[in-house]
């Protein structure tokens, strides 16, 4: 009997992939049954439905709130998010704009709107919005800059890469020493064949890095691309030195062994030339 109960429980958990959310939804549904006109409860259940990825049910709850005159920022955010997930982009934009009409500086709403625009393939508008968000936010995370850069690249306008570079430079200015943004920008400079700036930024990465071997190897690749083999060889030699001085237990890490192999191979190749 115990085994059967356990199996049933396991089966239940397998079919409800969001932990205890279904329990909370069930509890709040019972409360709604007892107080069907309580729109606060509907709003809370809508938010739980969003977390449970039941977007149609979420939309229904938020819409009920709106039909009954219960309109606030949480409800509008919820209904907009639900419509976005349901790929009803126009409706999602309509409701997020209602928030922005009354709170035009609400950065969370702008971020949501940018996400909606991306889903609706309006990449240029999304990029501009992300730019607004990262410009005005006090502590924007690196992800927002990456999203902005991605949106500009998808925007595919003549100025796209220039905009990408500007947004990433802004990110590096606001979040100094962030290697994720720096590497993204180095790649972009290389794509634009702006090797001078790429090398300059890569040098910054080397200077701030405590594990210099990879950054040196990457700069050597840039030197190689710009036909500066002596500088490339110098970087590779320096990278070998750094690798030789890391703790033994790090030398056996697969990616570091691979790096060492790549450095050795490139150095051999350049020396032969």
């Amino acid at each position, binding site marked *: 009997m115990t085994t059967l109960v356990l199996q049933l429980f396991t089966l239940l958990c397998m079919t409800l992939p969001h*932990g205890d959310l279904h329990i909370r939804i069930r509890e709040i549904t019972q409360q709604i049954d007892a107080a069907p006109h309580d729109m606060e409860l509907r709003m809370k259940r809508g938010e739980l439905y969003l977390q449970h990825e039941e977007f149609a049910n979420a939309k229904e709850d938020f819409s009920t709130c709106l039909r009954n005159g219960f309109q606030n920022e949480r409800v509008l955010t919820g209904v907009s998010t639900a419509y976005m997930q349901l790929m009803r982009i126009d409706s999602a934009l309509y409701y997020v704009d209602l928030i922005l009409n009354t709170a035009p500086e609400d950065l969370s709403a702008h971020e949501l709107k940018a996400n909606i625009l991306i889903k609706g393939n309006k990449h240029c508008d999304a990029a501009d919005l992300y730019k607004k968000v990262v410009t005005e936010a*006090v502590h924007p*995370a690196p992800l927002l800059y990456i999203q902005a850069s991605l949106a500009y690249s998808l925007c595919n306008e003549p100025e796209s890469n220039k905009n990408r570079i500007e947004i990433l430079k802004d990110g590096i200015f606001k979040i100094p020493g962030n290697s*994720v943004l720096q590497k993204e920008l180095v790649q972009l400079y290389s794509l634009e064949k702006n090797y001078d700036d790429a090398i300059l930024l890569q040098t910054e990465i080397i200077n701030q890095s405590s594990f210099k071997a990879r950054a040196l190897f990457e700069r050597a690749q840039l030197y190689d691309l710009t036909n500066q083999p002596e500088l490339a060889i110098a970087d590779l030699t320096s990278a070998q030195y750094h690798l030789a001085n890391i703790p033994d237990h790090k030398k056996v890490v697969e990616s570091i062994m691979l790096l060492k192999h790549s450095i050795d191979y490139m150095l051999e190749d350049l020396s032969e030339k």
Partner: protein
Amino acid sequence: MMKAILVALILLSAYKTDAQLVHPNSVWRYYDLAQEPPIQSGETWKEPGYDHSSWSSGAAQLGYGDGDEATAISTTTKTGYFRQTFIVNDITDYSGLNLQLTYDDGAVVYLNGTEVWRVNMPAGTINYNTYASTNSGDNVIITTSVANTLVNGSNLIAIEVHQHSASSSDLSFDFSITGVPAGGAAIITRGPYLQSANDTSLIVRWRTNIPTQSIIDYGPTTSSLTNTVSDMTLKTEHIMEVNQLTANTQYYYQIRNTADTIVFPSSDLYFKTYPVPGNAMPLTAWILGDCGTANNNARNVRNAYYNYIGTQHTDMMLFLGDNAYNDGTDAEYQFALFQNMYEQKLKNTIAWSCLGNHDGHSANSNLQTGPYYDIFSFPTDGECGGVASGTEAYYSFDYGNIHFVVLDSYETDRSVTGPMHVWCEDDLESTAADWIIAVWHHPAYTKGSHDSDTETELKQMRENFLPLFEEYGVDLVLSGHSHSYERSFLLNGHYGLSSTFNINTHTVGVNGDGSGQLDEVPYYKAPVGPEAGDGAVYITTGSAGKTTAAPINHPAMYYDAIALGSCVLKINQDTLSVIFLRQSGAIDDEFTLIKDLDCVPGTPCNDNDPCTINDELDNNCFCRGIPDLRIVSSVADAGANTLRDAVMNACEGDTILFDPGINDTIELTSMINITKDLVILADPLDNIVVSGQHITRIFQIAALKEVVITGLTFHGGYHASEGGAILNDGIILLDSTEFIDNWQGGDQKAWTNRSEIRIRQGSTYLRIVP
């Protein structure tokens, strides 16, 4: 954004500026021996000088009869007596006091020996037999305001709670005091708490009821606070960095403004810097997963740790997310962490955290806004070690030779191309630490109240981040989310569903598929060789505030339990250990992981096993020896180097050989008992004969023991009833042996077999005798 609104709503109610002097649900001394407490040298129980050390103690609510008591007192008493002392450093901070009483049926409250409040009790003198005026109903809560009659230093609150009648079935009690700040007086409403420590600096945070200056005086003793950092900006949220400190050093401190001391120095008000990165120093970390219930469950888990750790310093509190239910609002944080919860530790222990889903309800990780990001100060620029992440959502820090990586498994992109993954790889590549510990909320392996086979966040963390962490040799991964305790074997390379877990292929190292417990064999990680760096233990420990029923049957787990508790992590040099400490104080589970990065395989060692020789470190730095060889070099019946001596001193599984010089008969005067698995190996060409001289049987083999005998000749074995040369209750393999002239009574007989004898000539079995 709905999170932002939640925050705004809650902030309004969070700014409750009274100072909590006696907390609800706090621990009281109580007397329940069905009489008034006896007078001591003229002092009654309600007076400050009375010694209540012999009274019982327990957390409120106290009482009996309703079933909701945190501490049940004796049902035989009609009146309960309760006492608690508390410290006030500056009584001028308060213009008055607010009292709150939970009672059933009547009570009298005394402050420093003077009655200040009488509730539902008759006028006149009160004694043990005085009944309450009326039946109060269950758990009535009542409040009042009284004048400030506090004294500087220790204050005593004493309360007697009375029944309404002899037949009343229940008694209830809880009590709290808040001080109403005097006009213009700054008092602490949150903290102090410590953040973002490294070897030379850390951050002290606190909140005050009114905007005021931030000044910290600190020094080596409570009476020598000779250093000061200050910020004269008026504010209620105080975030002060103290720097230019010495590594691994304890400093006492006090907090003040320009007018007054706000937090007075005391023996437990201190901060301690971290060791210099790379230096191996012992670590004690308290791990709290999903602790945010703000109730007695969390307090009981807390108390268990306090009892366990005693006065020993805790180097860090590591919160695994869901620190404040349900939405991580500021008000919820106040009661889940700061007020009547962990404040005694937070003021002298560095606190770190990862974001849980409930914290995430009111936080925005991309904008780093909301209570979670407002309350905590985590390193974003690599200032505590590691690579700069640029965000408090995920970050890393060092404690000596230990590197901690904290990830956001809820709100931040978990893909392998996302910024968190890219940063994480960079960070792991850069660290030279001996130990790597990863922390995030959604566990890679769980069958608790959440399921790592089906839930998106859990699957993505396992599939995307585990290969990366394993490549860089992560040792321990700590998560919460499921409200249970689940602890894995020493795992490597399992990224699939639980049904694909194979204990033979997904565990590594010495005893990787075992308990890892000290009384068996700890886990060992190899510093060199093909398994170098492989193996990590995964702990899901999300029951520091509540438990939830679940199957807890993930096959990667060595141990699991649905029980309230927290974990204690200790690392010292090459040894890491973790215990799961139940709220009861019992230690449910423990394991030890040994990783000696400096060891050189092949170095001689001592495995403490007398049965082995040539002990040396293997690739896992596990000390192993090879079984000792026993050489028979004497044909005497007994004594050194004889067959009898070799059998007696041999260890289980040993091999006994014969010196090539022996080619004579070993003449026994009594039987040799063999009570262990043995191999007795003679060269048939040496013609070694063992003789019972027709007076004794030669060998008796004990039950369940396996003995291999090669190349011996048994001669002259004798026993009157169970002959001739061998009496077997075990399993014997006879290879190239001869039996000559052995007897049972008057009959020739080679052996008496009561189990199994296998006879082999070379590689061919001639006979198996059942």
